[in-house]
């Protein structure tokens, strides 16, 4: 079954370019386009895409607000597109529930791969950059480790898995590090997501930073 993608960008030439790239890859179907946040959110509600590629800076309703609406309606996973700024807008989009972000100059093959990864939900988009972004903009929020009830609910193993997810590791890497099978890791990950009430790995990472489970700089990339 093809992955269904919705394109939201105020530049028509960007949308048509992305459409050509994605459709040429096979296994991906662009089900719609929208040129601002409001119509984008509306289109997502109607078409229920798997992945929404969302520009951040747009007219009245920007990408952050549109992301919030789409996530609230559970109308697809949002990947935010940015020209070159890893800034507070991108961070705000992640907080609004985006599942990742992409630079607009991402190579076609990587773009296609990113759409597949997000649709699959097992790995983090650009783990290293995600981590840096969160460390930079998430520090204020991670000031005090809150003993959220959800943290207490996690088993020690699950907390360890959460820390490794926040470090940008894939399921396979986590399995190797903890000497487990990948299937077991998948179970742990889905338990973590369920207990925290988040929808994917990116949101789990954001959650971990904001609740002080991971302190900036604490979890080195191994």
């Amino acid at each position, binding site marked *: 079954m093809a992955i269904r993608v919705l394109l939201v960008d105020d530049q028509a030439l960007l949308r*048509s*370019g992305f459409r*050509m*790239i994605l459709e*040429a890859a096979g296994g991906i179907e662009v089900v719609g386009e929208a040129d601002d946040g409001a119509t984008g959110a509306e289109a997502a509600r109607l078409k229920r895409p798997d992945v929404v590629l969302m520009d951040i800076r747009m007219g009245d309703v920007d990408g952050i607000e549109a992301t919030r609406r789409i996530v609230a309606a559970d109308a697809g996973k949002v990947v935010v597109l940015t*020209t070159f700024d890893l800034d507070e807008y991108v961070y705000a989009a992640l907080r609004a529930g985006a599942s990742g972000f992409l630079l607009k*100059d991402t190579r076609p093959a990587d773009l296609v791969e990113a759409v597949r990864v997000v649709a699959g939900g097992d790995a983090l988009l650009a783990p290293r950059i995600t981590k840096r972004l969160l460390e930079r903009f998430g520090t204020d929020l991670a000031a005090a480790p809150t003993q959220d009830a959800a943290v207490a609910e996690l088993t020690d193993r699950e907390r360890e898995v959460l820390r490794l997810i926040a470090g940008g590791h894939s399921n396979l890497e986590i399995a190797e590090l903890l000497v487990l099978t990948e299937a077991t890791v998948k179970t742990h990950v889905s338990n973590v997501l369920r207990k925290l009430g988040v929808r994917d790995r990116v949101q789990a990472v954001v959650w971990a930073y904001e609740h002080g489970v991971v302190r900036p700089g604490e979890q080195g990339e191994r």
Partner: protein
Amino acid sequence: MADPVTRPVAEPAPVALDTPRWLVSLWTYGPSALPLLIGAIALLSMAPGDSLTWWLMAAVATAVALAIRLRWPFAAWTLSQVVVLSGVVPDNSGAYLLLLMVPVLPLAALSAAWPARRSVPAAIATMLVLALVAQQVSGVGGGGTDRTAINLALALALPGMASIAAWLVGYSLHTRRRYSDALLERALWLERERDAQSARAVAEERTRIARELHDVVSHNVAVMVVQASAADAVWETAPDRARNALRAVEETGRSAMRELRTMLQAMRGEDDEAAGAQRRAQQGLGRLGELVEHVRAAGLDVQLDVSGDLSRLGPAVDVSLLRVAQEALTNVLRHARATHAEVRVAVADERVALRVLDDGVGLAATRDEHDPLDPERRGGQGILGMRERVAVLGGTLTLGPGPAGGTAVEVLVPLRPAPDPVPSPAAPAT
């Protein structure tokens, strides 16, 4: 003595700042020689006794009071009063005229250091103490003779004159110092203001350029990258779409070049009318009037004379000339000790001239203030900075004595900087 408001006078202030050191020392400690000399004469000419002891002690105490009068005026003045009062006890009416002189310099120093509301009572106290001693040693009120009236007059007139004269000298020094303090403060304020302004202007400009660059890149370059990738992706399967994508790349590239060109033009200072007018009003010579007002408020009488059309100035020239004028006026305030200055701006032909003249002490007098080897560095980096600014614009800066004394700063700059020798990207492509 522990007067909370009395600050020690850090520098022997009544002497002007550029007086040679030896003269300052002489003025500070020299006066002490006189009482010491009188003490020595007393020692040589008088027989030992109470009177000689008093003479010696009074001489030493007076010498101390004089020596410390500039640093601790209140202590010096108090000590001088003690010396005068001690003159009542021994029978030495001959010493009265000398005693009359003891508090003069300490009182002057005190009046220079204190505001009038506090130095006037000190002057009156001095007068009263002197009168009291005069009355004691000359026996005023002791009998009904004809000499009494004369004595009384002398007893009051001499202390009165001495005290008033001392106070007047001190007070005028006090006023002058406050005035020059105010000037200096104003000059420093202007300097800070100028620095802050240029920092702000640079920051604003940087933000503006960053924003425009961002727009150009995000709107055009991103499209080119994506469309080129798309062309590649469908090259074989859909040649028509690939071709359209390539055309989109071409078209977008052209528009990016157009936008960059406009941006470069703006950065090179060839922006449009409205932006020019706005910038002039904010950072350029449009603010000259305001600047002159500030300097007037500092007490310098400045005359401003502008002739010609300022809107013909290129933006860089415009902004730089305001800075140069600001720098020059700041220097006048800080170093020239001038009372009057003139700022003239004249636009004629393809050049603009800026002249700042003052009636101050001139360059020679201020030359070695900061660096004896390099008169250019008068006022820190000031003149060097002005020269650099002007040189960048392809102009000249001349510094020399003014037509009526003082200093003249004269700047001559082309209305617009000469174009680069390399072909400009702003030139038509064909």
